């Protein structure tokens, strides 16, 4: 899958944010910023996604949905928490049903600061995520190769 290296597909989910970061995520896709020219595409299907862009502080009802979406994205995957709420709960951290931070529910790789996060910052987060995605892919193929080699060695051992 090396040809996919620079063209990640993104899944965006709003986990109890105020909408501010979400419209900035959408603004990244439109003419002024236009990340699609780099092959970054916003997909609606978790099974097609490489990167999960997630905003907000996650409330009790959303928790299950977030876990579900995360599970459905195939490995390797990178999670980007966009905005102050996604990092810590932000202005809503004292609300009674806010879990507070995406990393309380699923592992997060990149944090994008800001309230609301600016499109430039979000794009920077995605670029950072690319190298992490690459690293994870390297580990996976590395692990697969070792497994394959072990199997070969085992077969070789059996035949002799």
């Amino acid at each position, binding site marked *: 899958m090396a040809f996919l290296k620079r063209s990640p597909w993104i899944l965006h989910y*709003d986990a109890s944010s105020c*909408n501010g970061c979400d419209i900035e995520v959408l603004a990244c896709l439109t003419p002024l910023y236009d990340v699609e020219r780099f092959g970054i595409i916003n997909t609606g299907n978790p099974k097609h996604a490489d990167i999960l862009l997630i905003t907000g502080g996650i*409330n009790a009802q*959303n928790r299950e949905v977030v876990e579900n979406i995360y599970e459905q994205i195939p490995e390797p995957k990178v999670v980007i928490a966009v905005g102050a709420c996604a990092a810590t709960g932000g202005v809503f951290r*004292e609300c009674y049903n806010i879990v507070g931070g995406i990393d309380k529910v699923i592992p997060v790789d990149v944090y994008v600061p800001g*309230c609301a996060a600016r499109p430039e910052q979000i794009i920077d987060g995605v670029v950072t995520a690319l190298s992490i995605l690459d690293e994870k892919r390297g580990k996976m193929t590395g692990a697969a190769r070792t497994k394959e080699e072990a199997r070969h060695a085992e077969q070789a051992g059996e035949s002799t």
Partner: protein
Amino acid sequence: MPERIIVPFGPQHPVLPEPIHVDLVLEDEKVVEAIPSIGYIHRGLEQLVQKREYTEYVYVAERICGICSFIHALCYSQGVEHIMGIEVPDRARYLRTIWSECSRLHSHLLWLGLFADSMGFENLFMRSWQLRESVLDVLEDTTGGRVIQGTCKVGGVRRDIGQEKLDEMHRELDPFEQKCRDLGDVFLNDETVKYRLQGLGVITKDEAYALGATGPTARGSGVAMDHRETGYAAYGDLGFKPVVETAGDCYARCAVRVKEVYASIDIIRRAIEEMPEGPIDVKVKGTPDGEYFSRAEQPRGEVVHYLRGDGSKHLARARIRTPTLANIPPLVKMLPGAQLADVPVVVLSIDPCISCTER
């Protein structure tokens, strides 16, 4: 009778940036019933008034929704000012009006884009959002924030717009209006758009009124209700007439918003021309004691902030009724009879803002 099946729509769905869940009961391709369930964005902001000082809560009010941010802050501030008997300076009222209308412009252009996306008109989606960026540039230049402005406060506004900037804005309004009219022309006169929208998701005037529809959803059905008519901020001085359509279908609701874009540009132009000189804020002393229903017109309809203070620096209670919540019963009425493929268009025609709805 064909077999009934239930198709879940959302909470994570490509056409919606925000999570809402609707169970659609279908007979073949036709929707016979729609059962919404909400709560994915509920944060419990109303209770937060007891934890933040009344002057600090403006920031929270602004973050009820990232799209109508300024108008939420305005509505909350007006409520507190009324309870405390604070008279806001004229210049602050005019600046608030300009920023409110800028918010409305960017919200409507955003909605027009998403609406075009929902009917599969990608080109129009991109063009609407391109135009929206120039509004965001003005907002960023004058307030420092693109979507969350943080300029409204109890007792006035935090920043002034210099005369040079006002002149520049005034100069840019004409070319901007021309671009908006070119864009609006596609929404109003294009054959494919008309074919997709006319006669879809119809709600009559009586139904809209009885179900408590508000904003463009009500005005698209001929209910001439716009809270700006009551003349809060500077709307009273500037004079204002609501935009009304009578067909009650998705096309009418779209037309209302397109024409409101022109109306907003006109209000901003007159506000800049008539901008009074003077201070932009007054000093706020004391604590709120009393209660008030503060109302303002958001891009999606009327928002109500009920505020009660008990003389301490924290308010005792806030209750916020937002326009999308009021527009969900009309939506449930609109959906039956639509084809499954038209559901995203009908859902978007009320301009759902789930962050507002669930607070």
